[in-house]
């Protein structure tokens, strides 16, 4: 069974500082990992994905994430936070192509960037 854990409900960071939003996962087989961002009253916007290849994945709006197989983690990072990055962030996992294709989401982390 798949599962995703986002240990922090809330992350606060000062504008211009680096940010990290943590995610760990559990899945049988090879994981497909995703990060989505949700703004108020909006749908989830895709940020980046890890399927295979380089452990460091670059995505939209300057975000990147590092896949660590031994720690089963996929933390989201950004070198310099912007106030406009304040939103709800979801980590998600699905099995490889042979498994069910729906996403399992973490409980979300609310990021607040303080001016």
């Amino acid at each position, binding site marked *: 069974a798949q599962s995703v854990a986002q240990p922090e409900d809330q992350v606060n960071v000062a504008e211009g500082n680096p940010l990290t939003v943590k995610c760990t996962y559990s899945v049988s087989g090879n994981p*497909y990992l*995703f990060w*989505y961002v949700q703004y108020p*009253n*909006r*749908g*989830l*916007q*895709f940020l980046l*994905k890890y*399927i295979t290849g380089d452990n460091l994945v670059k995505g939209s709006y300057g975000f990147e994430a590092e896949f660590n197989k031994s720690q089963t983690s996929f933390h989201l990072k950004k070198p310099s936070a912007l106030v406009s990055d304040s939103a709800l962030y*979801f980590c998600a996992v699905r099995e490889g*192509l042979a498994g*069910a*294709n*729906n*996403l*399992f*989401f*973490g*409980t*979300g982390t609310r990021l607040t960037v303080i001016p």
Partner: protein
Amino acid sequence: AAGVIQSPRHLIKEKRETATLKCYPIPRHDTVYWYQQGPGQDPQFLISFYEKMQSDKGSIPDRFSAQQFSDYHSELNMSSLELGDSALYFCASSLSRYSNQPQHFGDGTRLSIL
């Protein structure tokens, strides 16, 4: 770029009524997913369709049904509505069930049950 279109954006119903939510996927996307997001919760997978056939089934109540039509749009039909059905309902689409491409989400339908 074209996105996933959901209608209506907001819907208010009373208990025991029925509701139909519509989803129009991104052009050329043949796979559609439905998710339910309760207040302050993460999205929960309900059901998906690939090439007009049901693909996977999640925590969809028996009171709900869904289908995908020949033009790939999908409808979620909800009957005997309960207060607990109040939530944001998202539709997502992807290029193929067998693709590693991401799912793209619509802005959702906010369903309120009075």
